[in-house]
């Protein structure tokens, strides 16, 4: 039952060996576990941070965008819940993107010393992001009960939008992590781009307050799609256009697949350049 492995020089297109990745899944499990454990070891609040972080950002958004800028008038639900929902799904996207992108460089000592399917490194980062998300989601659902908001059946689609947002983030992140192995610039550019995108997407303000003349800019932004779809499902706000939902369902897996193909293309030279 011994299997024969054949090692050849890298070709131009290096398709992932799915069965090998599946066989080595324990690596992803343990790395995800490590990330989660060490994040809160030797902290006083520990897991409390998972709850505090989304509450704090939603609170600040409510103050600044809701009160100061006065956007709360265009929102049919409490602004705090509105911005919390936006923050949650946005963090799934930006969290997977950021963590996956820096994963290869952060684990460079592993990459130059042992072999395992490298793809597992950026992929494993999704676990801690989703864990944070689930805790935040429980908070948001509790608020639905407090404010007696019934989103109806679309609430069942919440996991779908979440996964699609994660696929966008992961796809870009996986590709960026391969690029960062060679060019560390990516590590400086990405957080800045993500920050700009945060303000350019309707995370903390309603789409209804965007002037008609530049509305098209928001309509072509996939972040708008999953933000609107997620809020519709979770809080019962207005549904986004059908083409945007289709765009999400097609775009998410596509971006992830392209990211993985890009990653695999450079995977085998990582140890030489990292």
């Amino acid at each position, binding site marked *: 039952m011994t*299997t024969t*492995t*054949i090692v050849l020089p890298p070709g131009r297109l290096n398709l992932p060996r799915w069965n090998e990745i599946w066989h080595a899944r324990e690596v992803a499990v343990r790395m995800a576990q490590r990330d989660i454990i060490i994040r809160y*070891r030797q902290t006083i609040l520990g897991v409390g941070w998972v709850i505090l972080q989304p509450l704090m950002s939603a609170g600040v958004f409510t103050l600044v965008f809701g009160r100061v800028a006065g956007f709360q008038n265009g929102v049919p639900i409490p602004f705090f819940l509105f911005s919390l929902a936006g923050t949650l799904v946005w963090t799934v996207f930006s969290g997977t993107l950021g963590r996956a992108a820096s994963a290869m460089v952060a684990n460079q*000592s592993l990459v130059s010393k*042992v072999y395992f399917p490298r793809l597992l490194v950026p992929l494993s980062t999704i676990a801690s992001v989703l864990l944070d998300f689930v805790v935040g989601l429980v908070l948001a659902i509790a608020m639905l009960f407090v404010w007696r908001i019934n989103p109806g059946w679309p609430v069942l689609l919440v996991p779908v939008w979440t996964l699609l947002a994660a696929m966008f983030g992961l796809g870009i992140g996986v590709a960026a992590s391969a690029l960062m192995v060679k*060019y560390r610039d990516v590590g400086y550019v990405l957080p800045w781009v993500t920050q700009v995108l945060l303000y350019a997407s309707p995370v903390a303000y309603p789409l209804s307050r965007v002037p008609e003349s530049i509305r098209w800019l928001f309509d072509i932004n996939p972040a708008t799609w999953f933000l609107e779809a997620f809020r519709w499902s979770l809080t019962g706000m207005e549904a986004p256009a059908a083409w945007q939902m289709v765009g999400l369902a097609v775009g998410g897996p596509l971006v992830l697949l392209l990211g993985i193909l890009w990653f695999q293309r450079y995977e085998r030279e990582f140890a*030489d350049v990292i």
Partner: protein
Amino acid sequence: MPASPSPAIRVSGLGKTYRIGTDGDTASTAAEAFVRWVRNPTQRHWTTFDALDDVSFEVPQGEAVGIVGRNGAGKSTLLKILTRVTAPSRGRIELRGRVGSLLEVGTGFHPELTGRENIYLNGALLGMTRNEINRRYDEIVDFSGVEKFLETPVKRYSSGMYVRLAFAIAAHLETEILLIDEVLAVGDAEFQRRSLGKMRDAARSGRTVLYVSHLLHTVRDLCTSAVLLEHGHLTYAGGVDATLEAYQHSFATFAERQADPANRPGVGLVRFADVSVAHENLRSGDDVVVDYSIGTDDDLPGEYYVSAHITDEGGATIVQCDSRLVGYWLNPKKPHDGRLAIRNLWLKPGRYSVDMFVCTSTGVQDMWEAAGRFDVRPELPYSHSVSGDGMNRGAVFADFDYSELP
């Protein structure tokens, strides 16, 4: 090695070429790469270096094969390719069965994780499934001897405990092929003995073992055959003794080549003109005396220093005599004839070589490996003699005595 119907490892035409930047380092930012390309779009900014070229060999199942060769001969590159850490540039490898490696023990250990958590993480990274780790868990803990500290973060471990735990995990890999780099040099004597035993077990239990080492006596001890790598080429394959002899021989031709300054590495503004060992046949404890002469260079700013390494037959450096330690700096404007005397050095019997260096604070000017050679006669510097186990351990003898306190 005879070709068998289904060898565990079959390597054919293997080559690995690295690109080396010619203008300093390779570009590490996109902007830098772009600027270079704009300045000079046609010129290539790198040269190539063949770490391995046209290496072919087969390892039959159950064989323990040693890989020997000087530093930079390509041994580590070969192991890295066999473990698939890095990809070959040319050629083909067939590996029958899973490959485990003891290249870098403790890879992936996270200081904040406990011993138990690190066993699972490291085990997974080395290619064990969860069931395998669970099954071998008690054995690993037993072997490492850290059972009391399994719930302690490894950052609180002593370095000895850390290494023992790391080695214990790697040693319990159940792969058909095991690749070993010199990890024997870790831990205390007792642990080394157990590690060596573990490797011997691996070789005897029918697993295929590839062992890379400088330490010729462990190769002799562990392996059934060996291959010799020189400058990225496989130059000899055969029985252990014949290969080690070829290695010794390659050493002699290497020393001959090094006598010509053009073949030596270093910046080369100042180089040794001559190096000679005053007495090439000594007793342990005799002074080692090396005479040297160095040329001049008017362009070299400041002063420079020299250094000498005494290296044993296996390639391990026994002593380093850096002239900075004794405040000896040399003026490049004048030629120098000098003498290095090493006193009270109780070398063990065997053959030693002397590597000589000329260095400035900015880099190595001349590196003359095997500039000299001498033998230490098998006469013990002690009043009595014992059998092997009384003097096998340790790199040198020591001037010691025992006495009873009144």
